[in-house]
């Protein structure tokens, strides 16, 4: 599109092309390096290592559960932000986005202060039920959901805002309560946006490191997810770290591709 517009508006200025190219290199070179130095020859052999398999399985399970938690909590939150008016709505929206700009490590400390053994809620959980969260798999999920939730809320709220609200009006004139309209009309119509949000949240949860290591620690098989395994392996066995990184890179690219097709293949695009 832009290249077709360019001749009419004049040449594309070199002053803009050069930094663009440099930026692209900055993004691509590390990935190329990763692929070039990967120990392809011993790839399968290393994958057989039980510690690595545990980390991989733990990562897939926790990030999937975290994404599910984000869906259950985040979709209603996004709906409230997009479809209702209430005092302090912009404050709520700003609060939801805090984890986006918060250093994850700070998120981990904050989670400890809330859910740790001496935390605001954690102390009560410990006293009343004997439940302690830190250094458990549940803590991993909690940390991942904490950092991933804003991604889901943002993208679902965006989808709900651009969705045609007249369908909700039609549903209301046909007798549907707001809850029925939410389930039967709003949710299905926002389906592609919700899927995109869930994929983003899942990818963010999969890569979570700072909050996890602070709040959940790095217990093999319990809280040591892929990013933590990579960090640990970097000290002792760099080739394994590289291999794990390549796996995560592959998963990230797959998510990106899935997102693209869910954006371009919007199911109801044909409807005026």
């Amino acid at each position, binding site marked *: 599109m832009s290249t077709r517009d360019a001749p009419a508006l004049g040449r594309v200025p070199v002053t803009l092309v050069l930094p663009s190219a440099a930026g692209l290199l900055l993004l691509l070179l590390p990935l190329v390096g990763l692929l070039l130095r990967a120990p392809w020859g011993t790839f399968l052999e290393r994958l057989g290592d039980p510690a690595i398999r545990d980390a991989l399985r733990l990562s897939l399970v926790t990030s999937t559960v975290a994404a599910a938690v984000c869906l259950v909590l985040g979709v209603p939150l996004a709906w409230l932000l997009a479809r209702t008016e209430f005092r302090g709505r912009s404050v709520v929206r700003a609060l939801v986005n805090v984890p986006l700009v918060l250093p994850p490590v700070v998120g981990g400390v904050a989670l400890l202060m809330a859910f740790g053994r001496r935390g605001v809620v954690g102390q009560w959980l410990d006293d009343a039920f004997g439940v302690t969260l830190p250094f458990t798999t549940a803590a991993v999920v909690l940390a991942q959901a904490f950092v991933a939730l804003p991604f889901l809320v943002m993208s679902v709220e965006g989808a709900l805002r651009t969705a045609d609200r007249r369908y909700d*009006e039609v549903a209301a004139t046909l007798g549907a309560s707001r809850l029925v309209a939410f389930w039967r009309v709003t949710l*299905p119509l926002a389906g592609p946006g919700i899927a995109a949000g869930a994929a983003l949240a899942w990818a963010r949860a999969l890569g979570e490191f700072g909050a996890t290591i602070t709040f959940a620690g790095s217990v093999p098989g319990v809280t040591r997810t892929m990013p933590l395994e990579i960090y640990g392996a970097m000290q002792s066995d760099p080739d394994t770290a590289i291999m794990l990184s390549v796996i995560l890179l592959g998963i990230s690219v797959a998510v990106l591709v899935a997102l693209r097709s869910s954006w371009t293949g919007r199911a109801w695009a044909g409807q005026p």
Partner: protein
Amino acid sequence: MDRARLGGAAVKGLEAHLRMRRGSFDADAAFTVPPGEVLALVGPNGAGKSSLLRALAGLTPLEEGRVVLGGTVLEDTAAGIRTPTPQRDLTMVFQDPLLFPHLSVRDNVAFGLRHHRAQARRPRQARAQADDLLARTGLADLAGRKAGRLSGGQRQRVAIVRALACDPALLLLDEPTSALDVSVTTEARAFLRQHIRTFGGVTVLVSHDPLDAFVLAERVAVVEHGRITQTGTPEEISRRPRTEYVAHLMGRNLLRDGDTYRTFSPTAVTLFREEPITSARNLWQLRIASLVPHGDAVRVHLRGAVSLVADVTREAVAALDLHEGLAVWASVKETEVTTFTD
């Protein structure tokens, strides 16, 4: 779609007094419609007709007023009553069909049957009834299709069936044919007419197209600037227009002198280049504001002491060399004029 079984409550019809204000827009209208009657709110675009309809549905709040349907107060600003839309015994057909695109035609029709206040059927029952209704309205072959895959005319017909399926006490139609291609407008209007006839509830139709009103409605209320300027049967309105808008809508000229109205057809107006020597009592010197093709004729809009529309032949336009800005004489024989008073 039998209303009798709902008994006495529905017999009272609709009683509405609607006052709305939003920015510079201001509307104030009151009307009563007995069950089984179709009232058409007709008026120019932006006159506030659709806002009045949305207020009846409860989609737009009233500034002041009262809506009573079948003896039930739906809204009363003085008493602080406001029933949410889903709890009102009404359905609405919008300008765009707005079928739920992710549902089949059958499930679209079944939607109201499952959730509408008078219905609340189980899913299986609702679908069976939807199939039955689609069959009775000649749309059976569309039942399994995804709503997004229908043509514009098909969609609007399904939207009409979906609204009627709930058998509401009040059916609201917001410009139901205006978003359609001209080629299918007639078909959709005929479909609507056929199915509204057997509908026992109150129907309020909004349209800027007088044909909708004439084909579908028993009574017409003309809405201009948020006010009802005239009500009557379509025939009364066309014979005795009270405002210039209505007169032009009906393709007639209207002259008003105090409480005396004089109306005549554009074809009754004769144009002259020179002041004619004539027995016609109605003679004005006017200026041509515009010339627009109108069927086989040319419609001439004239401005001056009075505003008139005249239909003349294309030959006359050529012979008299009529063009915009030209001053001409216009006359009408008194025998062509209908005179009535308030």
